[in-house]
């Protein structure tokens, strides 16, 4: 009988070995992949069990933090300055996240492989686990100025401000905005109600207009057209070009006119220097230049400035600014002055100016300055990198002269801001973009500019939907942001 008993014992042993092996497989080996399986509310709740890292501005202002509220979802996300920073922070809701909350999630939760060793040490020393702090590049003064100006304008629009030398994003604001605290509620029903309300709001508060929406650049695109003209041909700001009061576009009955049908410059013979045409923003002159350069040349220059790039991340994805190849000369003429199929993000607007401010080199925009682990060690920090060099330093200097003229010349479209910031020269370009089907919509006000004060410099892009003239609706906001940043140096 003992022989049979020994075999029975082996069978029992095999059963236990199978169970032990399976428990190992399930809890050690497969545990990770099970967290992503459908209906796993435990894995989901786990992310609320410990303190998520903070998000701060460059100057240390906390704009997202986790507070202990008890319950199954122990920590709730709190956004002290909800609407103002929503385009940067995004939200961290029960079922989804956006913005930096989503892009830097692995650091904020502390799951990043860069933090693995620290987590093990914390586990051994029994310290409560805490996510890493993500410090953004935002300047709280600039951000506050941008948000306040947008809010008081009351019109939908967005502002992006860049450090031209590094690409660091100093301000990113969008209006109307939403309060991410409403999406950070831990009650699923409340969350659904809030989410539905935001989604159905006709003002589209969830739309981040700074990086996730594009608008026609209007005359601000003349920076790109000029860049192509100065780089391609032997043109310079003093080159005299045809700038008629009215221009018949080839093979069409459309007549292109300058603003209010005005004459360009004072020469009186239908000609003007490029700098004059730029300062007064004469459409006919740049339409002519564009047609001479051709759509392919313009497109190539636009792409060097960062357009047609679907892969830009800051670290959230930025929607592509568009400059398609135009099949007809008349379309090329329109696209050369920022109409037709051209569309840009407010970030792209800031990138135009930043390129000129940085001697022709476009730096890659970024929003995250550094990531600091809970033990205060730096686990990741931004390293500024050039994205491209659209123009040579010489050409950049020529365009800078023209942009300065827009503000400083009495005939400039933004002459009203000549002494807006005492001791600071602003270089800018206005845009008033026709909009909608058959230009039925209100004009979008666009302004791109840059300025420096001491060691501080900033490039700003502003688009106000239906704002009217760029100088009237967009420029004051941009100047307010410049002022807030440069005067607090």
């Amino acid at each position: 009988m003992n022989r049979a008993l020994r075999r029975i014992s082996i069978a029992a042993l095999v059963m236990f070995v199978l169970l032990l092996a399976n428990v190992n497989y399930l809890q050690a080996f497969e545990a990770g992949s099970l967290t992503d399986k459908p209906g796993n509310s435990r894995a989901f709740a786990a992310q609320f069990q410990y303190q998520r890292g903070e998000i701060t501005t460059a100057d240390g202002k906390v704009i997202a933090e986790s507070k202990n509220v008890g319950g199954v979802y122990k920590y709730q996300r709190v956004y002290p300055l909800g609407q103002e920073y929503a385009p940067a922070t995004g939200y961290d809701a029960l079922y989804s996240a956006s913005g930096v909350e989503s892009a830097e999630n692995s650091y904020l939760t502390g799951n990043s492989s860069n933090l693995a060793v620290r987590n093990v040490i914390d586990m051994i020393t029994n310290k409560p686990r805490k996510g890493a702090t993500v410090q953004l590049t935002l300047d709280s003064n600039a951000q506050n100025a941008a948000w306040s100006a947008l809010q008081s304008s009351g019109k939908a629009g967005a502002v992006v401000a860049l450090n031209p030398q590094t690409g660091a994003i100093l301000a990113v604001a969008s209006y109307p905005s939403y309060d991410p605290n409403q999406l950070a509620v831990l009650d699923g029903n409340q969350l659904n109600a809030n989410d539905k309300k935001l989604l159905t709001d006709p003002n589209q508060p969830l739309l981040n207009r700074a990086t996730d929406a594009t608008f026609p650049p209007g005359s601000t695109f003349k920076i790109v057209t000029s860049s192509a003209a100065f780089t391609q041909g032997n043109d310079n700001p003093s080159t005299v070009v045809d700038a008629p009061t009215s221009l018949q576009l080839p093979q069409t009955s459309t007549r292109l006119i300058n603003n209010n049908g005005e004459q360009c410059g004072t020469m009186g013979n239908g000609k003007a220097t490029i700098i004059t045409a730029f300062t007064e923003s004469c459409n006919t002159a740049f339409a002519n230049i564009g047609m001479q350069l051709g759509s392919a040349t313009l497109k190539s220059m636009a792409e060097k400035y960062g357009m047609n790039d679907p892969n830009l991340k800051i670290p959230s994805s930025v929607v592509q600014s568009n400059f398609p190849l135009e099949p007809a000369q008349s379309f090329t003429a329109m696209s050369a002055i920022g109409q037709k199929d051209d569309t840009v993000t407010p970030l792209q607007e800031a990138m135009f100016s930043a390129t000129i401010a940085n001697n022709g080199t476009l730096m890659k925009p970024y929003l995250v300055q550094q990531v600091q682990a809970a033990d205060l060690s730096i686990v990741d920090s931004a390293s500024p990198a050039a994205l491209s060099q659209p123009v040579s330093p010489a050409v950049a200097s020529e365009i800078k002269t023209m942009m300065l003229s827009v503000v400083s010349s009495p005939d400039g479209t933004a002459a009203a801001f000549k002494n807006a910031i005492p001791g600071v020269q602003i270089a800018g370009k206005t845009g008033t973009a026709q909009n909608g089907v058959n230009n039925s919509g209100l004009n979008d006000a666009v302004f791109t500019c840059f300025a420096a004060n001491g060691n501080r410099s900033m490039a700003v892009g502003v688009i106000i939907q239906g704002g009217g003239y760029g100088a009237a609706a967009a420029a004051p906001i941009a100047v307010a942001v410049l002022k807030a940043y440069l005067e607090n140096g």
Partner: protein
Amino acid sequence: MSSVATSEDATLGGMPDSPMAMPRGRRRTEAVMLVFAVALVAFAYANVGFGLKGSLPSGMAEYMIAFVVLLAGAHLAVRRLAPWADPLLLPLAATLDGLGIVMTYRLQEVGRDGNPGSMSVPLSSSATLVQIVYTAIGLGCFVAVLALVREPRVLQRYTYIFGLVGIVLLALPALLPAGISEVQGAKIQIRLGGFTIQPEEFAKLALGVSFASYLVTKRDVLSLAGRRVLGIDLPRARDLGPVIIVWAVSLLLLVFESDIGTSALFMGLFVAMLYIATQRTSWLLIGFVLFVAGAYSASKLFAHVGERFQIWLHPFAGQNPFNNAFQLVQGIYGMASGGILGKGLGGGQPYLTPLVQSDFVVTAFGEELGMTGLMAILLLYGLIVQRGLATSLSVKDPFSKILAGGLAFMLALQIFVIVGGVTRLIPLTGITTPFLSQGGSSLVASWILIALLMRLSDTARKPPPQPIQDEGMTQVVNLS
């Protein structure tokens, strides 16, 4: 005796002075291990309180004192009634029982007193107390079995009575109206007032004893007489008849009651005992083939069973995680979230798994004690099985051998079926986890099983009666 000593005398001569190494009862080892078991359980109980509220649970002292008193009583009874019994069985079972009480308390506190979560079927606020009362009843039965069954062979006298009792216990829920016997589509219990009894837990033991004593009287004819068909030795029908009948009836009842898990246990118990008794490997083969074929056809015939297979194969497919596989995947998610070291008692969300207090209690341990704790629990069971099998190997009389081996193997099989089921190693069939599941019948029956194993091990380890005198020598009697 003459002074001429033979070499044989010389060897024997030393004996009276240096007595043969006496096997020790090892009751002191049992006492020390029981202290260890109680310490472990008390620590776990306190851990629940700290995990949930950051303080010692209220009522812990009373419960732990009750637990200690019960175990002390059992230990003293063993000292009197089975002094030679295996010293590890009682502490092992006590540890598991105590952990069951701890988990009952942990799950009872879900949603109470500001603790997170809510149970699909909440435990009453006195569930822990009830579990301790069941432990008391279980230990009472444990002592009673040791007291009544002083020799294993006593059980052999009631071969057919035990068989009949087993079948009646099995049949009872099926014959009673569904209102008092059905739970989750399976008719396996009797509800009386506020109490429920699962008769099959006791039927397992009665039928096990019955099988063993029948097989021991018939094992010679079963293994020797008979025909050889297709290379397999078949016993005579009249010898095997009663066993086959008992087995078939139990299987039919189980199918009627839709309880595949218990049917697998009976099959395992029956085949293991038959194999131990006859030593014929063919029985294992026949048993295995019969069971697989039976399970396969059951999966085709009964929707209830077929669904189990689908859940096992595709738990994450489509809407399964939210519908019929919900319980299984929630249990697995719980174990996955526990990972290697677990969430700590009171730190996990075992309440997300429906009915976690009964069939899925292992996943609650996996979630809160982690892979490490669950493996330790499995090893506790493994040790009980090992002690049972060791007893079976060392015991002399065939009845005890078959009974100990069969019971130990059935316990191993039960652990395999339920733990393998909830960890998706095999299709899930709802049976209780011995000692850990909340509920009385399983706990009491498990204690009776431990009592039987202890009685058998006591028999195995009891030293043979010592000759009063060395019979090899001539006795000199002084009659003055």
